[in-house]
């Protein structure tokens, strides 16, 4: 074995070894320089990049969502509140296997297909260390289940946040509106920064109209996090500013009185405080529970609402457009008196039919079957008993131009400008309107139809209330308003924006006639005057749902209830010093006097009661 060594030359071997070790040391030196170059490159040449990166790593800016402004009624009753809701969120990075985690969770709590779909969709948009919501609105029991099993649910967390809550449920659904998840379309129009930390937005009603005020401003928090995203400490904080609280003119007692008076029937009512133009009550029935929408309504619930024959989602108060019928008679009476086309002493004889020269077919009175309203019908009687023939005559004498122009002053035919989104303008026809909308010339027959609030004419319950308030206030033009104060500061809602110029004696005349509608023995709304301790002025109306031929007679017993006439009523009270004006419709209610007027009476009574027990608390 040692034979090789025997021939070896130790000196030569030593030199060979030394030269090899020298090569080795050179390689060592060279590779050390490579290392130094690398560390120099990282630490000196690219220091700025990495320092920034390292800061970004640890410093995270988190939005602090503001708490949304609350909505109170005029007495301080809370209409829209914020309450904590518990969500289940997933941080994919922290779970070893997200699929497995989802399966595990599904065993413990209910997770719908829809939850999963939304989760998967959102998951793609978020980075793996960010939270993605899986379930909202965990029940107490579900939270307990999750807490107990927390140790094997790494990556799943329950988090609390404030969500909207409407204590009155369906009562204020249409007026207050509701909050909902920001949808695709909205996310493109909103300023993303303002909505960081929240996923809800006002969808309709006041929640939408006052979105900017209610929202508040988002705050932020600079936090230092570790690699798992856990917050180690707060470096800097800008507090969020809560949204402004809204105080409404609405009174939950009047709202309740009006809502209940409809007794589940379809209809709408608007009550206005005459002194301010503020909305005291705004009812549209049937209604729905806005709380369903806050955390996302289920498809089934939504379909039920959407396809219900009663259309509960439809806000009849501002979007329902109905022929106003006889409710516009006081207004046209004022117009005629003021433009002197009729006088208070002018009378007609009504035998049930009205003939216009050159037209063979007559217009008939609603009580043509009883032979009309007889001899000596003046304006007062025409209002009290709702004589159509008188108003046909009045219409023809006054002319559409005057009627139309005047009606506009009382708020008909255009949006009232209420602080709600989605208001409809109704129609107050005129020559120009017909030309534009129908491409036809105006005929006298059109005027005759309009003069009893039929034909092309349409008005919303809100417009009827506004008209009623302007008659009651003797021409004060105010814009109807829901919001009384923002953060305790009164808005300028009470300002008069115009004055309708009509002689006082005409106001007196029409007010008296309207009072007699309720308080005289022949008044069409006399049924509501029993036990009244104050005076109501009103006017009933009926609007046809289907057209009846001149030869036929309307007979509700032969018709489906949904084809019955709509019953309308406009009114204000007390007559001497008007405080509150109402416009309302009861769909298929048939008679303004017997079915619609009692609803107004209920609201008036509630109002009078609240005035008696006055020391109104204002917030």
């Amino acid at each position, binding site marked *: 074995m040692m034979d090789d060594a025997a021939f070896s030359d130790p000196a030569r071997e030593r030199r060979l*070894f030394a030269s090899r070790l020298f090569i*080795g040391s050179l390689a060592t030196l060279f590779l050390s320089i490579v290392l130094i170059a690398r560390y120099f490159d990282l630490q000196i040449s690219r220091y700025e990049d990495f320092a920034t990166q390292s800061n970004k790593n640890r410093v995270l800016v988190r939005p602090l969502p503001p708490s949304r402004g609350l909505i109170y009624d005029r007495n301080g009753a809370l209409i829209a509140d914020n309450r904590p809701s518990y969500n289940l969120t997933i941080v994919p990075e922290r779970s070893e296997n997200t699929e497995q985690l989802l399966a595990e969770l599904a065993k413990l709590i209910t997770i719908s297909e829809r939850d999963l779909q939304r989760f998967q969709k959102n998951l793609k948009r978020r980075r793996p260390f960010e939270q993605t919501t899986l379930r909202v609105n965990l029940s107490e029991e579900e939270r307990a289940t999750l807490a107990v099993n927390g140790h094997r649910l790494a990556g799943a967390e329950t988090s609390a946040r404030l969500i909207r809550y409407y204590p009155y449920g369906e009562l204020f659904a249409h007026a207050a509106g509701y909050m909902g998840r920001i949808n695709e379309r909205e996310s493109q129009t909103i300023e993303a920064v303002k909505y960081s930390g929240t996923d809800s937005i006002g969808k309709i009603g006041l929640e939408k109209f006052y979105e900017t005020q209610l929202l508040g401003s988002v705050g932020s928090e600079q936090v230092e996090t570790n*690699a798992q995203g856990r917050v180690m400490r707060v470096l800097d904080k800008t507090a969020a500013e809560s949204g402004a609280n809204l105080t409404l003119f609405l009174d939950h007692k009047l709202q309740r009185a009006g809502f209940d008076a409809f007794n589940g029937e379809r209809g709408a009512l608007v009550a206005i405080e005459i002194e301010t133009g503020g909305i005291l009550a705004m009812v549209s029935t049937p209604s729905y529970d806005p709380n369903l929408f806050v955390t996302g309504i289920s498809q089934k619930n939504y379909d039920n609402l959407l396809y219900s024959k009663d259309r509960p989602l439809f806000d009849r108060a501002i979007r329902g457009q109905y022929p106003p019928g006889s409710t516009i008679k006081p207004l046209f009476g004022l117009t005629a008196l003021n433009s002197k086309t009729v006088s208070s002493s002018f009378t007609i004889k009504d035998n049930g039919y009205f003939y216009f020269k050159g037209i063979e077919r007559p217009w008939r009175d609603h009580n043509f079957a009883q032979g009309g309203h007889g001899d000596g019908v003046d304006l007062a009687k025409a209002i009290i008993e709702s004589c159509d023939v008188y108003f046909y005559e009045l219409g023809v004498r006054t002319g559409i131009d005057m009627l139309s122009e005047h009606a506009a002053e009382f708020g008909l035919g255009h949006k009232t400008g209420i602080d709600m989104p989605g208001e409809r303008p109704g129609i107050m026809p005129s020559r120009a309107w017909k030309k534009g909308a129908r491409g036809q010339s105006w005929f006298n027959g059109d005027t005759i139809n309009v003069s009893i609030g039929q034909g092309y004419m349409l008005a919303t319950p809100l417009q009827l209330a506004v008209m009623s308030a302007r008659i009651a206030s003797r021409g004060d033009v105010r814009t109807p308003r829901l919001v009384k104060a923002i953060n305790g500061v009164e808005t300028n809602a009470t300002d008069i924006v115009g004055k309708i110029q009509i002689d006082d004696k005409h106001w007196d005349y029409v007010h008296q006639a309207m009072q007699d509608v309720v308080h005289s023995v022949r008044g069409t709304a006399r049924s509501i005057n029993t036990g009244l301790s104050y005076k109501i002025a009103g006017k009933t109306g009926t609007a046809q749902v289907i057209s009846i031929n001149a030869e036929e007679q309307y007979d509700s017993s032969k018709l489906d209830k949904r084809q019955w006439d709509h019953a309308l009523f406009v009114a204000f009270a007390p007559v001497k010093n008007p405080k509150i004006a109402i416009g309302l419709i009861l769909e298929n209610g048939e008679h303004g006097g017997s079915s619609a007027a009692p609803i107004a009476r209920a609201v008036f009574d509630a109002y009078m009661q609240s005035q008696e027990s006055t020391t109104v608390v204002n917030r």
Partner: protein
Amino acid sequence: MHRNDFVRQLSSPGGDRRPSRVMHLDIPLLLLLLVLCGIGLTVLFSASGESIGYVKRQATFMLVGLVSMIAVAQFTPRFWERWSIVIYAGGLLSLVAVLFFGVGAKGAQRWLDLGFTRFQPSELMKIAVPMMISAYLSNRYMPPRFKHVFFAAVATSLPVFLVARQPDLGTSLIIFSSGFFAIFLAGLGKRYLVSTGLLAIAAIPILWFYVLLDYQKQRVLTLLSPEQDKLGAGWNIIQSTTAIGSGGWSGKGWTQGTQSQLNFLPESHTDFIIAVLAEEFGLIGVLTLLVVYMLLIGRCMLIAVNAQTMFSRLLAGTLSLTFFVYVFVNMGMVSGILPVVGAPLPFISYGGSAIVTLFIGFGILMAISTEPKRI
């Protein structure tokens, strides 16, 4: 045991009476090692999240290592030369045993459970392989003939292969280097060098398709473009280069490194500890450590050149070059110029076996350094 195995012969003629000589200690080497241990414990304290427990345990390992080193230094190089084949054979058998009875964690099977303690044969092979190859080649004609090179290559490859299968690529790489360095220092012909190089290149596809496991391939791919997989395999490298880069010239200060203290840095107290040092002490810290390493390697090479026998020379030279491989592989992988193979930074990374093995290696170097001159 041979009577001359103990170098400590109190009555040796012309014997050096200095305590260091009597104890067979190489003072410069010892001082450099103590400096490294000091640096190691300092950085470890910060890297472990200011854990005194880790520091205490590491200090205990170092103490065990120091005692082992001094013990090993008491034996003559001649002793190690004679027993090298036995140690090697024992190590190889243990490696095979690991294959069948090994225990381990995280999918790697590296230990033998001896009942009272666990034993990691691959650590033993880090010393046994260079010792065995040096002993073999130093007794042959130099430069070595083909059959000797072949035998040495086979003797190296067996443990390399067995360790790679555990899998422990880092240790396998160290064992391979030590075998290669021994053959290289023995004067391996240029033809062999060139053909070995060509063979290595040819072996790459074979390695890639038949030897490397998926996660190992992933590490290589990650090295090429860490951005591809930011939160998976690339995470480690992105975070470690960020830690190093954000240290700048002078660092963020001891225990002030945000990357490491906030757990962005993985394995911060073991394989990636250099990133903590670089983040907290900056380039100055990195250079200081490198200088200490280079002084240590320089001292070792000096010992090699001055060694008394060819065995001592080969072994000392091999150990010093292999030591540099540790440093280079670790610092290279953490800074993103080499794939992540799991190699600790000598004396700085936390971990008992590696430290004790290192000290034993330096014990042999001290034995060589203090071997009495042949007259």
